[in-house]
């Protein structure tokens, strides 16, 4: 998500599920949609069946997605930058990029400041002692008069992004790609030829990815490499194109939008930093800056309106102009507070208690044995869940001496999402309202009721006992019919926001103001619950495709509601040429009809004439107004570069001296604990972890029908390796890493196999994540699933940008039991 925002301006799937049917070519990297998104996968099949689209799936394993793909490539995990880099090189060397698009809609023409360099795997500005870059060395050269970036539309300037990019990727020859990824040169060339066709205006390709790219210490760069390729081919903003992140849980997109990550506030406003005292200071440090005269810089321009309206929603009358709208009520974290940091702090004994809700720390995080130790160092742990989890049961897990665990564990039964109404926001940003399906069971209460009740009690304590800085708690808006039982519909209405002068619901975030007269709980949702009601409940769909989807592009504008402003394909100004005509008339996004933009909801001022010399550039969220091939919003490099996973059996063929990411965050080392990384001598095999269709993480371990479908923990072992080791299909094996072990059954298969990487033969093995010591399978196991947690193996390291753990590439050994 970080990398998409750093490239296009917003961190979300750019298109939407149904749109995939419009593609000519579908590259799937680091995703297994047939298994993890089977319902969404119908649109891949429609593209294949109805328009003869080709699907190319690159994955360490031949999966159920590969089974229907036109071409499957066995790729080494963590090497997709090389794959996309090789494709970028092929496209650039053979002039197959979409010329007009690249010149006008990307920052190819922008000129980078002198001093930027890349050598031996390091970009300029590296500080080895801190393991960080000074990213100021990656800025544009600016015109001293206007402050805008210098551009060279001929793309010839040696420091133009275009030339630097060409040079950067010239190292990614097919041979190099093959040596890094393991994909044979001839097969890679076949793919390159297909992809090379997609720069033509009447062709369009989509790239689909998920956590197979994210779960790496290079995750951000892996994704950005695909995004850059898409910009070069002119596939962004277009129906059938895009860089499409398939999100996880049914509502994970909604989670992110509403700031489940520590570093953002709702609507991707940045969390304020220590020292910022005023809204102006905050906006200056957080908002994108306009760097071209034709850049609208919509986000940057309106940042303060969004922030003030949010503060107004939260603190009501207590947020006044003369107290900076209560800006000082907002916490300003001094240090990182991402997932792994929390358990790192707990391990260090710096945390007293923890509330887990709808997530089981003991299964999902890397190095789960260490995470379990961390839980054991807490004074108290609250688990809000509908079911027992490995976290609620961690203190008496098999092999744990319950008496020795001092943590007090509280289980607070909540309703499951199926027992409440509310919205689900899918990957395509469609917020769809659902009904309650089942009544709550037993004494379970809704999460939001529990939280509301806790809040009221805390407030009462402040009232009766006082305390430090009570203001944010006392001032918090809580205008619900029942202050301990808010309804989700009330909350949705509040999130949309209103005009305080008229009392009316707002129809668009364009109406938000920074004078304290408007509110919003999350500006990107303004427009979802207007005076017309809750638009997320709309259901005008395939009952009448002609009426509900007049363009046939699958927009279905009156089905639910999608952010921003019910727009279905983001950046859709880029789907049309400079004159406002669609690049491909058969697949229009928006079209200039002479007086206005028609088609999808334009991601652009609706009546802005493209012929007006002052008209805005298409990527309105970016300061540049264009898509970024080169981005200084990433803290690990402006151009994606291949780095090895932290644990790898080979040295980086591009720059062996700087093999892994020089800025990946090494938690143990940073905390003064010894790094626990294995090497290929002791742990010769590459492992990756993933999902199976039949299970949803850990929770379906409680569902008999699904447990029957995949009843037992197993690992997938390549046939050839199994033969070498005398392991027969179905036998028990031990898989161990530097950090822990699994003892499970082996599923021997030719769907995994050997690769030749950097001249070496390597094997990859596959580890489904779904088992642990809680659930029906564990109950029926004599060992109670003691050695079934996949994350016992994974390393405690994080990507530099998002601190996402490296779940997808680590070293293990395999023994027959």
């Amino acid at each position: 998500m970080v990398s998409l925002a750093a490239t296009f301006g917003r961190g979300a799937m750019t298109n939407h599920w149904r749109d995939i049917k419009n593609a000519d070519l579908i590259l799937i990297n680091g995703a297994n949609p047939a298994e993890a998104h089977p319902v969404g996968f119908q649109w891949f099949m429609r593209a294949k069946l109805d328009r003869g689209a080709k699907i190319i799936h690159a994955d360490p394993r031949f999966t159920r997605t590969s089974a229907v793909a036109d071409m499957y490539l066995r790729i080494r995990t963590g090497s997709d930058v090389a794959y996309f880099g090789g494709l970028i090189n092929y496209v650039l060397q053979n002039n197959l990029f979409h010329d007009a698009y690249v010149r006008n809609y990307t920052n190819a023409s922008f000129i980078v400041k002198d001093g930027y360099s890349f050598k031996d795997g390091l970009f300029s500005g590296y500080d080895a002692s801190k393991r960080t870059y000074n990213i100021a060395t990656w800025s544009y050269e600016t015109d001293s008069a206007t402050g805008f970036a210098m551009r060279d539309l001929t793309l010839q300037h040696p420091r133009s992004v275009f030339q630097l990019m060409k040079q950067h990727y010239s190292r990614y020859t097919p041979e190099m790609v093959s040596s890094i990824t393991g994909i044979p040169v001839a097969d890679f060339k076949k793919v390159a030829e297909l992809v090379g066709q997609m720069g033509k205006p009447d062709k369009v390709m989509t790239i689909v990815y998920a956590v197979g790219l994210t779960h790496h210490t290079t995750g951000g760069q892996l994704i950005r490499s695909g995004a850059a390729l898409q910009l070069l081919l002119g596939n962004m903003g277009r129906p059938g194109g895009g860089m499409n992140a398939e999100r996880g849980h049914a509502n994970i997109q909604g989670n992110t939008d509403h700031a489940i990550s520590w570093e953002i506030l709702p609507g991707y406003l940045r969390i304020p930093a220590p020292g910022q005292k005023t809204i102006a200071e905050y906006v200056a440090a957080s908002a994108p800056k306009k760097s071209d005269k034709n850049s609208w810089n919509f986000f940057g321009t309106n940042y303060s309106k969004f922030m003030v309206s949010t503060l107004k929603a939260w603190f009501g009358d207590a947020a006044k102009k003369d107290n900076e709208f209560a800006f000082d009520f907002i916490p300003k974290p001094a240090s990182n507070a991402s997932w792994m940091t929390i358990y790192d702090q707990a391990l260090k004994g710096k945390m007293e208690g923890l509330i887990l809700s709808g997530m089981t720390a003991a299964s999902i995080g890397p190095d789960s044995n260490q995470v379990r130790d961390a839980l054991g160092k807490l004074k108290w742990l609250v688990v809000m869940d509908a079911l027992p989890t490995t976290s609620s049961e961690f203190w008496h897990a098999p092999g744990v001496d319950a008496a020795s665990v001092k943590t007090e564990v509280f289980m607070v039964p909540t309703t499951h999402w199926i027992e409440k109404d509310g919205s689900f926001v899918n990957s395509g940003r469609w917020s769809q309202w659902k009904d309650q399906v089942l009544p709550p069971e037993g004494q379970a209460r809704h999460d939001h009721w529990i939280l509301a009740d806790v809040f009221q009690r805390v407030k009462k304590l402040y009232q009766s006992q006082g305390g430090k800085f009570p203001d944010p708690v006392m001032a918090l808006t809580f205008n619900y019919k029942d202050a301990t039982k808010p309804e989700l519909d009330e909350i949705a209405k509040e999130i949309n926001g209103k005009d305080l002068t008229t009392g009316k619901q707002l129809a668009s975030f364009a109406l938000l103001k920074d004078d304290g007269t408007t509110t919003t709980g999350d500006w990107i949702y303004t427009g979802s619950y207007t005076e017309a009601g809750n638009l997320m409940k709309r259901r005008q769909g395939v009952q009448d495709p002609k009426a509900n989807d007049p363009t046939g592009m699958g927009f279905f504008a009156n089905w639910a509601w999608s952010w921003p402003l019910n727009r279905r394909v983001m950046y859709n100004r880029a789907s049309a040429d400079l004159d406002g005509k669609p690049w491909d008339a058969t697949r229009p996004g928006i079209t200039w009809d002479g007086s206005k933009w028609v088609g999808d909801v334009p991601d652009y001022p609706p009546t802005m004439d493209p012929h007006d010399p002052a008209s805005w550039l298409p990527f309105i969220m970016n300061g540049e107004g264009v898509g970024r091939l080169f981005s200084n919003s990433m803290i690990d490099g402006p151009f994606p570069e291949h780095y090895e996973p932290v644990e790898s059996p080979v040295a980086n063929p591009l720059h062996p001296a700087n093999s892994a990411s020089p800025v990946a965050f090494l938690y143990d080392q940073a905390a003064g604990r010894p790094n626990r990384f294995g090497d290929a001598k002791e742990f010769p095999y590459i492992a990756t972890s993933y999902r199976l269709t039949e299970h949803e993480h850990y929770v379906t371990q409680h569902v008999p029908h699904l447990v029957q479908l995949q009843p037992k923990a197993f690992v997938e072992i390549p046939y050839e390796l199994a033969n070498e080791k005398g392991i027969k299909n179905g036998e028990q094996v031990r898989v161990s890493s530097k950090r822990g072990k699994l003892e499970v059954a082996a599923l021997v298969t030719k769907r995994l196999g050997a690769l030749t990487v950097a001249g070496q033969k390597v094997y990859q093995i596959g580890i489904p994540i779904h088992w642990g010591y809680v659930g029906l399978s564990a109950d029926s196991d004599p060992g109670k699933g003691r050695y079934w947690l996949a994350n016992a193996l994974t390393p405690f390291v994080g990507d530099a940008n998002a601190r996402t753990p490296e779940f997808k590439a680590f070293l293990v050994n395999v023994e027959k039991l």
Partner: protein
Amino acid sequence: MATKIKAGESYGFFTDTSVCIGCKACEVACKEWNELQGNNATFLADSFDNTGALDAQNWRHVKFVEHVPDKPATEGNGFAWLMMSDVCKHCKQASCMEVCPTNAIIRTEFDTVFIQQDVCNGCRNCVAACPYGVIGMNSQTGTAHKCTLCYDRLQGGLEPACAKACPTQSIQFGPLAELQQAADVRLAALHSQGQTQAQLYGRDDKVYGGLNAFFLLMDKPETYGLPNADNAKLPSRNNVGGYVGAAITAVLAVVAGLVAFRRRGEAA
């Protein structure tokens, strides 16, 4: 699904294995709708199949056959890792129906094959007869069970649960004639893409007079555990041979008996 379901028309399934993704949604949807509990969970180490076979608790079963070459790059396209959602074929000439002594097995007004639970007496003759191993005995009721083609749903105007759940339209439900047309189009498309091994199974009358639940296969029928046209025979084929064999034996035996007992007036 737009079709209106009318009594008196022929309905069935066209299952296109080339687009099946083995998600087993059909298996689970069937169990949910029909309130089947499923069997005890056992790990079979057979690709991704842990169901094993169609039986009284599994009226849909997704088969997995791995033919994936051990190569770093290969084609998928539905024939490297074969997946097929198996079900009762609702045969035009149904072996099960042929042998059932109680007439519990009937053709419904939707031209599907249905076992009436209150008529079935649990003799298992149909189990022995079904060439596809479809029917299983429910140990609690002691009666024969199999896919009903969601008879109850069809009567209520709903498409079958499995077809509704299938995300890729691998299972298509509808009037037989429409399905056959769709299948011909799909087969032609695959053939034109050079997938000449693709074939329709049960689309014509070569197996059991045609199957209401027919398939597009990406390999030989035997690979999926389906008898080919040469092997697809009705149980009644053996009536004549069996009885004639018995009759000849009877004649010989009677003659032999008469010979043995014929001699009169002899001492023992």
